[in-house]
Each structure stands twice: as structure tokens, then as C-alpha cells.
């Protein structure tokens, strides 16, 4: 690896990391502000313009607070759990391409932490690892409410990860038909969503010319299943049984100070990265009009990032909207939605799209 290549890798990681931290700061503020608006309140307003620095203030407060260690904790696991929450959360986002690759001085700079050829598998693996932090934090706290939260997390994660994975499989199968062979790399999945559906189906070109070639349209069912599953996966309302504040306070009851802040950070990082993955898989990632030629070069270089952020924030907004609207599910309802609705729906959709794809590729079996 030459020096330039090394520094480009460093730059990629640092840029991705910085973007993630920045949007997380904004996310916490945005959630509080949006929830306040939906509940006819004012929301944070004092710190900075429109209270935008509220998260910084809260973070500083938590940073300087004492991190109390209760007497009955299982110390090693107790100290490890916050890191287990943060590290997978950051690693997930490293897979997501958040802009069109830039060319700087002959070197190509992909705006993506790392383009693994097994990107999607890596994401599934990391999101499963993140559950360990919740379970271990709940168990190692040596207190009954966190333990309840941890137990709930186990069941919830197992049920919804299956639906999430199955929805992803449908997308991967479909993507394989859209280009040269199958792929799990997110950069390649984004590339295959460039253009409009008019380019693919020439017969309907006049109508489909304005419909972007997103996986959303052929895979709408998978998108709905995936979205419900990621809401559950990130432990957000109405699936926030893991940290149901009103009943069991949550798996992080015994955490305070910076250790609590890390769980908090991980939750919001997860929201953003999960929405980013949904936007990448279904909404075409950074694809969008760049107006090449009619606007200055740097604008068309930055526009893909703007499209990516706009799509992601649209989904993040729906997260907040749902949180402000729906009451928390009961535990049996949670299990029912997961096992009796989502997984059968995901399996059914998988069979349907597999049938359609094979029919298009090999013709009818009776011919």
C-alpha cells in the first residue's frame, strides 16, 4: 500500500466517523424538537440558535458526572457493555456509502468507511453483536429491572433480526438480476439503482422516465418489513420494551455518567445507520440528479451526499413520527407481530420474488 492510498483510507474513515458524530448530535436535538412540536411544546431552545447545541450541553453534563458503580455488578461485563454498544454501532455505518466517489488529484476517494464485498452480512453481524451489549448490561448490573430489560432484548432481537435478514435477502436476490451477478457490497447495490426505471423497461419509458430506479418500487413489501424490523432492532417506540422507561427503566438503569452516555450515543447512531442502510437498499442511496455542467463542480460533487442525507433523514423523521404517535406494544403483541406477521410475510415475499425472478430468467417451468 502506497502512502497516498494509506492516507486516503484514513481520510475515508475519519470523514465517515465525523459525519456520523455530527448527524448524531443533530439527531438527538431533532428528535427532541420534533417530539416537542408534535406535543405542542417548545422543546430545547436555550443552547445555541434553536437550541441546536442542546446535545453538546447534555453530553458535557454526562461527561462530568460521576459514573457510579453499584456494589453487586459483575464488574468486567459491566464495564465492557457500553463499549460493546458503541463499537458495532459505529462499524455498521462504516459500510454505508454516503456520497459519490470523489476524484482528488488522480486518487479516487470513496465516501464510505470501507467497501466490503460482504457488506450486508457484516451489517447483520454487527447489529446482532449490538444486542450483546444490552443483554450483558442487563445481566451484569445485578439488579432485577435491567435484567428484565436484557431478557426482553434477547427475545426481541432474535424475532426481528430474522425478519430483517429475510427482507434483505429479497433485495439481494433482486439486485442480482439488475447487473452482473449477485453482490453484497453496498456500493455496488447503490450503483445498480442509478438512473430511472424508464431505462430498464423501454416499453413504458414515457411514464417511468421520472421514476428513479430504486429497489423500493419492485420491493415495496420488503421495504415495509425491513423498516418495521429496524424500528424493533434499534429498540425504538413502539418496540422499546427493552428500555420501557415507565415500567422497568431499562437495561441501563444502573449506568450513569459517561457509561450511560455511550448507550445513548449508540442508540442514536444505530437509528441513523439503520435508516441509512434502508435508504441505501431501497431508496437508491446517494443517487439523484447532480445537474452536471449547469452548476459549479463542487456542487455536483456534494449533491449526492445531500440526496443521501435527505433520504436518510426522511426515514429518521418517520422514526420520530412513529414514536410520537404509537403507544408501546405489550410483550405478547411484540412477539405476535414478529413471529406471526413479519416473518411469514417476509418468507412469503421471498418466495414470490424468487418465483418472479426465476420466471423472468428461465421462463416458465412447463415450457
Amino acid at each position: 500500500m502506497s502512502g497516498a492510498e494509506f492516507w486516503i483510507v484514513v481520510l475515508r474513515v475519519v470523514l465517515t466517523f465525523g459525519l456520523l458524530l455530527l448527524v448524531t448530535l443533530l439527531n438527538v436535538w431533532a428528535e427532541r424538537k420534533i417530539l416537542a412540536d408534535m406535543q405542542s411544546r417548545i422543546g430545547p431552545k436555550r443552547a445555541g440558535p434553536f437550541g441546536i447545541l442542546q446535545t453538546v450541553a447534555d453530553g458535557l453534563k454526562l461527561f462530568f458526572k460521576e459514573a457510579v458503580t453499584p456494589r453487586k455488578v459483575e464488574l468486567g461485563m459491566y464495564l465492557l457493555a457500553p463499549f460493546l454498544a458503541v463499537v458495532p454501532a459505529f462499524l455498521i455505518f462504516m459500510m454505508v456509502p454516503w456520497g459519490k466517489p470523489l476524484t482528488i488529484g488522480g486518487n479516487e476517494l470513496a465516501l464510505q468507511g470501507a467497501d466490503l464485498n460482504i457488506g450486508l452480512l457484516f451489517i447483520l453481524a454487527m447489529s446482532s453483536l449490538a444486542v450483546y451489549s444490552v443483554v450483558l448490561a442487563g445481566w451484569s448490573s445485578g439488579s432485577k429491572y435491567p435484567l428484565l430489560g436484557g431478557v426482553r432484548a434477547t427475545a426481541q432481537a432474535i424475532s426481528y433480526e430474522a425478519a430483517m435478514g429475510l427482507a434483505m435477502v429479497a433485495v439481494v436476490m433482486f439486485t442480482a438480476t439488475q447487473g452482473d451477478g449477485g453482490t453484497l457490497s453496498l456500493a455496488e447495490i447503490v450503483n445498480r439503482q442509478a438512473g430511472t426505471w424508464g431505462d430498464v423497461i423501454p416499453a413504458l419509458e414515457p411514464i417511468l422516465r421520472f421514476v428513479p430506479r430504486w429497489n423500493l418500487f419492485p420491493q415495496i413489501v420488503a421495504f415495509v418489513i425491513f423498516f418495521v424490523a429496524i424500528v424493533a432492532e434499534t429498540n425504538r417506540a413502539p418496540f422499546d420494551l427493552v428500555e420501557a422507561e415507565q415500567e422497568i427503566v431499562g437495561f441501563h438503569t444502573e449506568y450513569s455518567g459517561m457509561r450511560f452516555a455511550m448507550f445513548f450515543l449508540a442508540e442514536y447512531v444505530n437509528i441513523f445507520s439503520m435508516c441509512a442502510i434502508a435508504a441505501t437498499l431501497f431508496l437508491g442511496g446517494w443517487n439523484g440528479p447532480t445537474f452536471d455542467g449547469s452548476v459549479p463542480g463542487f456542487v455536483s460533487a456534494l449533491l449526492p451526499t445531500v440526496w443521501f442525507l435527505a433520504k436518510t433523514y426522511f426515514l429518521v423523521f418517520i422514526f420520530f413520527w412513529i414514536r410520537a404517535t404509537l403507544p408501546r406494544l405489550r410483550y405478547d403483541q411484540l412477539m405476535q407481530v414478529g413471529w406471526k406477521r413479519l416473518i411469514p410475510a417476509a418468507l412469503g415475499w421471498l418466495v414470490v420474488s424468487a418465483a418472479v425472478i426465476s420466471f423472468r430468467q428461465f421462463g416458465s417451468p412447463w415450457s
Partner: protein
Amino acid sequence: MGLIAELIKGLRVTGGTMLRTIAGSGLVTTEYPKEMRVKPQRFHGRHVLNRYPDGMEKCIGCELCAGACPADCIYVRGMDNDPEAPTSPGERFGYVYEINMLRCIFCGLCVEACPTEAITMTHLFEFSTTNREDAVYTKETLLMERDGTVPHMFPDDELADLGELDTADGWLRATAPSGVAAYEGTLMWQGTPGPADWAPEPTQEERDRRSGEGETDG
């Protein structure tokens, strides 16, 4: 399908509320302390011990307020008036008068119990302290000045609104003696603590007589 319809209905409610709030209407919170909301007339705030217009204390040290107090937060000791220079028009006066604001539940039963309307409540509700001793209000703090103003615990405080102490709650007139609460806007609502300047309400006897004559009474 029914569930989906319900979900969309719910999302419409929250989304509509958000748009309305962004447009700047329908806010239910204010930016306290920059902006105070108007308190209801019968707001139960800090107590004040009143004086007659001639400067005499109304309290006669009877301890009925202490007896009525469900939280046991009032301590009163009476003392005989000096015949040469009486403190109150009666035989005795409140020599010691203490209210522990940490115990007080602001129910207003002391106000109701007082036979001379000596203790009333104001609209002041911001009186946090940094130590427990300061939360026990003595006669020095509770008693109004001879000119009718009420001493404030922290007059230099940024949040201190001296006007709140001049606003008596409506409890006094609304519950006595006929029990009819429809006095808003009439002279019977007295804005400030101190001597009443309203006409006495009709007594029960009078009311019975009048309703016997076929008159209707609110």
C-alpha cells in the same frame, strides 16, 4: 387493514399538531421564567398575615389555623395584648407565627379556619431555598408591612415578582359564608390582601327569608 387505518389516523394527529406548532399556534407551554403564565385567581401560593387599615394585626393568636392544618406545619403562640399599646384589636395577638413551607401542602384550610381573615394566600410560588432553616417562614416574613406591602424573601432575585404577593387568592370570599362561588368580576373579588372593601354577603337567615318570598338567588 383496520390497524393500518388506525395507524394513519394517529400519524395524522401528530403530524397535524406538528405543522400547527411550527406555524406558531396551539403551544401549551411557555418559556418560564422568561414568560410567566397568568395564574388562576384562586391560586394557592405563599401565605401572608394581614393587617387592618389602621395598622393593627388581624391575627388574634387563636391557633385555629394550626389546628386545621392537615400537614401540621403551622406553629402559633398567642400572647395577651399590652392594654396601652395593643398589637391587635382583640384580647390576644399572635406572638409567634411560623409556617414550615417544606411541610405545607397549600390546601388553604388555615385560610378557611381563620376567624379574622388574618391569614390569606398569595400568588407567589417561587420560594426555593438552599437550606431547611430558610424554609421555615417566621412572622417577620409572613406579616405585611403597615403600608400594606408584603415582604419578599428574596427581593433582589431575578425571578422575584413582587406583584405576586399583592394578589390574594379568591378562596377567602368564594367559600364564605354562603358558599356561593359566583363572584368573579364583582367588587367582592378583592385583588389585594388586607381589609375587605366589599359589602357583606347576605346571611343564611336572610337568604332563607328571601327565597321564601319567591325570589331566586344565585
